[in-house]
């Protein structure tokens, strides 16, 4: 369940201003050593919030990546990527991505 770590570090972008600055400057370096899977690391670095959503990441928390413009995201790109996701009537991912890790 390392998606917990993804959610946690998304909130750290809000809480920890040094981490926020590090993510803005060099996200690969900032994420080095974090307890996340390779798939999660790749999705984070690509700003692939759709994939992270399918893996169980929380939209409030991922939105901090757009708000503070890290990993190539901004409000517009985040909006487009999230809106492209297929969801059920309850707003939950229609397709769930299992992380082999």
């Amino acid at each position: 369940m390392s998606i917990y770590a993804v959610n946690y570090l998304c909130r750290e972008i809000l809480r920890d201003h040094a981490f926020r600055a590090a993510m803005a400057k060099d996200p690969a370096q900032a994420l080095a050593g974090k307890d996340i899977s390779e798939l999660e690391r790749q999705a984070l670095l690509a700003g692939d919030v759709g994939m992270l959503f399918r893996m169980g990441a929380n939209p409030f928390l991922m939105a901090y990546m757009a708000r503070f413009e890290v990993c190539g995201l901004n409000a517009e790109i985040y909006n487009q990527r999230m809106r492209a996701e297929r969801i059920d009537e309850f707003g939950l991912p229609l397709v769930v991505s299992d992380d082999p890790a």
Partner: protein
Amino acid sequence: MAQIVAGFGVPHTPIFPFLVKRDGPNCETAKLFAAQADRLAAVRPDVIVMFDTDHLNTFFLDSLPIFAIGVDKSFAGPNDEPREVPLYNVRSAPDLAVHIRRLGIESGFDIALSEHFSVDHSIIVPLHFLTPNMHVPVIPIFISGHVPPLPSAQRCYELGRTVGRAIASWNPASRVAVMGSGSFSLEVGGPRMMPGRDYGVPDPDWAARVVSCLSDQKIEALIAQSTQGQLLRAGNVGGELLNWIAMLGAIGGRAPEYIAPQLQNGHAYGVWRW
């Protein structure tokens, strides 16, 4: 004895302080909050008890209570940096909070305890408009309305009734206003955002039905319709309606003075006085 003197339903949209500062006191949101602030001042509250849903800022996924109460002399917020909102220190009323928690647990509500905490925009934004001097102590009661499974609407209404009984059995004479904070239909940061916006209103018909039930005092019908499925269909923060339902339980069967909808945002402003 303490008495509940009013109920309020409030939105907490984090961008509102910025928009009101930009657009001035005659914009719709400024006027809607000002009308509530006038009525709150008129009932001269000694304490505000606020039902609220935290956005994973006070609590997190490492420990997420269904119900919790803040018990401290004061608390700080907002802890999530909404624009144009200063960092406030809000006085609280720990003795009454302890009493509410004790009576809640005796009544079957296992309310978690937080003795040192900060709060996010969902508490501070309404206070920023309603009590900007932060002169009225505030007791937050947290309801988990964002991360399913959600507590049932009936359970939240009963929690509110229990909190109402606890306040009524509190010995120091004090005047208590009860608030419920949140939206009826809203998606924040999720796939149901509107194009080019950071939010969406996935189920405006539901928001209108909620307003209608509140206006017509059809609370049983509101509770019956507020299933988890409906709340989730209404958006990823649709469960914030549970805070309004708990507030209604606390104040008892009262008619609203007014419900002012702002349906483009999926929420409303409500006042109950008697």
